[in-house]
C-alpha cells in the first residue's frame, strides 16, 4: 500500500529484436518443414497440417498461463510491480493463443468430425480456461487504481490457475460418465519431428510476444506515473 516514490523503469530492449527475428524465422522454417516433409494423413489428407499450429498453440497457452501463475505468486510475495506487469503480459498472450487454439480446433473439427463444436472434455475445458482469463483481463480493465489492480488480478490469476485441473477433471467425468466419444490423440511418428519443431518455434514466438507486451506495459506504467507526478505538482519522472 505504499505510494510509489521512484519512477518505474523501462527495461532495456537489448538483443530482443534479434530474438524476435530468430523466433519468426524458426516459425517459418518449422512451418515449411511441416508443410513440405510430412505426408498426407490417411484419413484427413492435408488437413492434418493444421496440427502444426493448433497443437503448439494449445501447449503454449498452458505455458503462458503458468507464467501468469508464477508471476502472480511472486508479485504477492515481493510486491514488485514488474511481476504484475509480467503476469498481465503473459495473460494477454495466453488469451490470444487460447483463442487461436479454439478457432483452429473448430476449423479442423468441421471437416474431420463434421461439426464445428463438440462437447468433448478437452474442447470444453479449453473454452472454460479462455473464459476464466477473459475475466482476468476484464478485471484489469475495470480497476484503475494500480495497487488494487495488481493485487486483485494476482489473486484472480492464482485461483484461475488452481481451477484449471479441477475444470478439466470435472468436464472429463461429465463426458465419460455419459459414454459418448473420446478424442483421437495419437500422432504418427512421421509427424512428430515437425510437431516438435513447430512447438519450439511457437514457444520462441510466445516468449518474444510476452517480452514485447511486458516492455509496452512498463512504458505505459511510466507514462501513468509521470502523469500522476505532474498532477501532484512534483517534478517529472527524470
Amino acid at each position, binding site marked *: *500500500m505504499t505510494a510509489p516514490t521512484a519512477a518505474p523503469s523501462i527495461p532495456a530492449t537489448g538483443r530482443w529484436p534479434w530474438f524476435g527475428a530468430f523466433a519468426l524465422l524458426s516459425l517459418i522454417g518449422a512451418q515449411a518443414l511441416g508443410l513440405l516433409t510430412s505426408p498426407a494423413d490417411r484419413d484427413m489428407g492435408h488437413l492434418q497440417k493444421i496440427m502444426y499450429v493448433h497443437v503448439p498453440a494449445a501447449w503454449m497457452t498452458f505455458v503462458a498461463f503458468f507464467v501468469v501463475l508464477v508471476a502472480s505468486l511472486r508479485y*504477492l510475495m515481493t510486491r514488485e510491480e514488474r511481476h504484475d506487469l509480467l503476469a498481465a503480459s503473459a495473460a494477454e498472450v495466453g488469451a490470444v493463443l487460447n483463442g487461436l487454439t479454439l478457432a483452429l480446433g473448430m476449423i479442423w473439427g468441421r471437416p474431420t468430425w463434421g461439426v464445428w463444436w463438440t462437447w468433448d472434455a478437452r474442447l470444453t475445458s479449453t473454452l*472454460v480456461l479462455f*473464459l*476464466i482469463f*477473459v*475475466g*482476468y483481463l*476484464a*478485471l484489469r480493465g*475495470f*480497476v*484503475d*487504481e494500480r*495497487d*488494487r489492480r*495488481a*493485487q*486483485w488480478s*494476482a*489473486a*484472480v490469476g*492464482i*485461483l*484461475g490457475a*488452481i*481451477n484449471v485441473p*479441477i*475444470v478439466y*477433471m*470435472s*468436464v472429463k*467425468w*461429465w463426458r465419460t*460418465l455419459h459414454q459418448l466419444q473420446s478424442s483421437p490423440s495419437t500422432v504418427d511418428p512421421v509427424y512428430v519431428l515437425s510437431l516438435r519443431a513447430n512447438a519450439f518455434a511457437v514457444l520462441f514466438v510466445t516468449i518474444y510476444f510476452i517480452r514485447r507486451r511486458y516492455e509496452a506495459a512498463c512504458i505505459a506504467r511510466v507514462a501513468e506515473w509521470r502523469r500522476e507526478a505532474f498532477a501532484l505538482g512534483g517534478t517529472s519522472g527524470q
Partner: protein
Amino acid sequence: MTSGWPQALAIAAKDLRIERRSKAGFNSVVALGITILVLFGFALGPDAAALRDAAPGALWLAILFAAVLAFNRSYQVELDAGALDALLLYPAPRWTIYAGKLLANLAFVGLLIAIVVPVGIVLFQVTIPPRWPLLLLVVALGAFGIVTLGTFYAAMASRSRAREVLLPLLLFPMLIPVILASMEASKALLTADLMRAAGAWIRLLVGFDLVFLVATFLAFDHVIEG
C-alpha cells in the same frame, strides 16, 4: 488464525441484521429466483417428463443467478459512507471480515435455497427420491462452493467499475466444476443412479470446496486492503 471467530460472528450478525431490517432485498432476490424457475419452465416445458429431466439444471442455475445478487449486496452496504474503511480499522485480523461475510452469505443463500428449491420441486413435478438426505448434502456442498467463491470475488467486483457484469464474468467460469458436479449429482440421486455416479461427484464437490476455502482465506488479505 487463532481467535477472531467472535469478531467474524459479529460481522455476520451485523450483515444479517441489516438484511432483516430491510426485507426488500431478500424478498426480491427470492422473487427473482422463482421468476427464473418459471422462465426455465417456459423454455423447457410443458411436457412433464422433459421438465423433470431438466429440473436439476434449472434449479441450480436459478440458485446461482439469484445468489450472485446477494454477493454484490453484501459489500455494497459497506461502500456507503465509508463503512468499509471503518470495518478495516476493526481490531481483528482481516480474515474475520471474509469469514463474517461468508457466514452471512451462507445464511442468506441457505434461506434462499430453502424457499426456491421446494418451489422448483413443485413447478418441475419432481418426485422426492428415497435417498433425499444425500440430496440435501449435495445442495449444501454446492451452495458452499458457490458462496465461497462468490463472497471472495464480490469483494473485488463490487469495488470496481462495471460491477454488475464483472462479478458474473469472473465467477461463472470459475464455478463450472461446482455447478456441473451439483447438477450431475442431483440428477443421479433423482433417478436410480445406475452408474453410481453420485459418489464421485460428491467427492469432487468436497475437494473443490476445501481447495477454494483455503485459497480464498489465504488470498483475502491481499484483496481487501487494496
